């Protein structure tokens, strides 16, 4: 599903964020990418949905080589990869329903499809009764659920979540991770970037640890190894 081959990323002028990173994620896997702050996790995530381009190496998503993807093809890629961030990135002037519908509207989806899909995904994330709320009327956990719902509308094969629990308390974080696990059980590949030890240890899924821009361990049913 995702294959990184010898990926390096150097930010201008000479900040090497990733160095010779190779790994492979199988369809339907749930992979946690862990590492301390500044180790290159976000950079890795950005390479996946083409917000950054690698300096060298090769990235394949599905059977699509996106290493030097043309900017006109990026929208197509992003409709196949749902993204979730620490800061939710919701539009404060749109309701829950509108925020989720927005992702379909801008992609040119038909109105009937929007009316069908949006309530579906809101139900999946457990916000079936909060369509008309605005983001500021929701808790942090609920806001993150909205952004996950939005990431799901294109029925993506992959969900990339960069520190989705970074702004949430422990209980709420656990609920969000449960939701991601549920989505994974439906068959979606999940790439979870985090530095939360408890979450990783409780998950008992594959863990890729990166440090200083290099992969230092890759274990099934892993634990958070770095201090």
């Amino acid at each position: 599903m995702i294959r990184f081959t010898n990926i390096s990323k150097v930010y201008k002028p000479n900040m090497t964020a990733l160095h010779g990173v190779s790994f492979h994620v199988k369809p339907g896997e749930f992979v946690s990418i862990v590492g301390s702050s500044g180790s290159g996790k976000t950079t890795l995530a950005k390479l996946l949905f083409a917000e950054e381009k690698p300096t060298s190496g090769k990235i394949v998503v599905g059977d699509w080589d996106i290493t030097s993807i043309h900017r006109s093809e990026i929208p197509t890629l992003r409709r196949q990869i749902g993204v979730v961030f620490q800061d939710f990135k919701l539009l404060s002037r749109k309701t829950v329903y509108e925020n989720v519908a927005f992702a379909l509207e801008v992609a040119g989806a038909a109105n009937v499809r929007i009316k069908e899909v949006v309530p579906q995904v809101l139900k999946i994330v457990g916000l079936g009764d909060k369509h008309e709320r605005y983001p500021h009327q929701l808790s942090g956990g609920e806001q993150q659920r909205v952004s996950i719902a939005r990431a799901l509308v294109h029925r993506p094969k992959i969900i990339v979540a960069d520190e989705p629990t970074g702004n949430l308390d422990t209980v709420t974080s656990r609920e969000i991770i449960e939701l991601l696990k549920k989505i994974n059980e439906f068959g979606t590949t999940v790439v979870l970037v985090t530095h939360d030890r408890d979450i990783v240890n409780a998950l008992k899924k594959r863990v890729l640890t990166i440090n200083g821009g290099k992969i230092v361990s890759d274990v099934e049913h892993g634990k958070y190894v770095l201090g």
Partner: protein
Amino acid sequence: MRTLIRVIKFTGQSLWRNAWLSLITLTIFVLTLMTVNAVLLVNVVTSSAIRAVQNEVQVAVYFVPGTSQETEKSVRGYLLGLSQVKTVEVITADQALQNFKDKNAGDPTVLAALDEVGGNPFGDAVVVSANNPQDFDFILQAIKTPEYAPSIKQTDYTDYQTVISKLTTFTDKLRIAGLILAGFFALISILIIFNAIRIAIYVHRDEIGIMKLVGAQDWFIRAPFLLEAVLLSLLATGVMAGVVLVSTKALDVPLMQYFGQVNVSLWAYFTSNALIIFGGEFLALALLSSLTTVFAMRKHLRV
């Protein structure tokens, strides 16, 4: 079709939800057009002023009394043959006498003196008007040929000469100053419009970022901003056209009184050229703001 409706919907939302910003942008657009139209207006008024003076300025050529009709006719023909000459009007000695009498009807001493002289002391005269005030010098020189000079008693022009040259240099300077000013304003306007649009896009940067993340095409992200720029240009041109037409209508009466017989109607000028003036302004503004929009959005569309 569906996307068109969505573009319109997003544009409407953006205009409405950032009403103050739309209003500021609109105001800047209107002010820009205002400077352009003010320069136009000044240009119309000054060229009317020049025309007014030109029409009033004429040179009178007085013949020595008793000059033969032959010679007078040949002088007239000669003058009319000059490309610089617009009209040549004949004033016969009788008319001159009558004019003089009318003018001094209330002054018995002058009339008495006239009787004293006996007969008609005036000769025939021609009144020449030129196409261009600068040409009077040439016309005056032209008439001083050895052939005609003996028949000409006097040319009456000197009073006007300095006035005209002063006026022409003044209006020329005014026109150049107006052009420089217009260019200067245009430059400032471009900068202000550019910044207004940049601010508008900055306000929407989160939305643009999210649109990119959820897989919107670049043109789809751009379209509402472009439509907004065009709509605001249209609205600004409409407001400006209203202001110009109302104010020129009000200005016309005092202006006509001031310029006398010259027909200066700013209103007529702006209405008869409405399509070119306002249409051109709309197109220029829409093009400028659209280009600015595309340029200002480049940074936000990059990732």
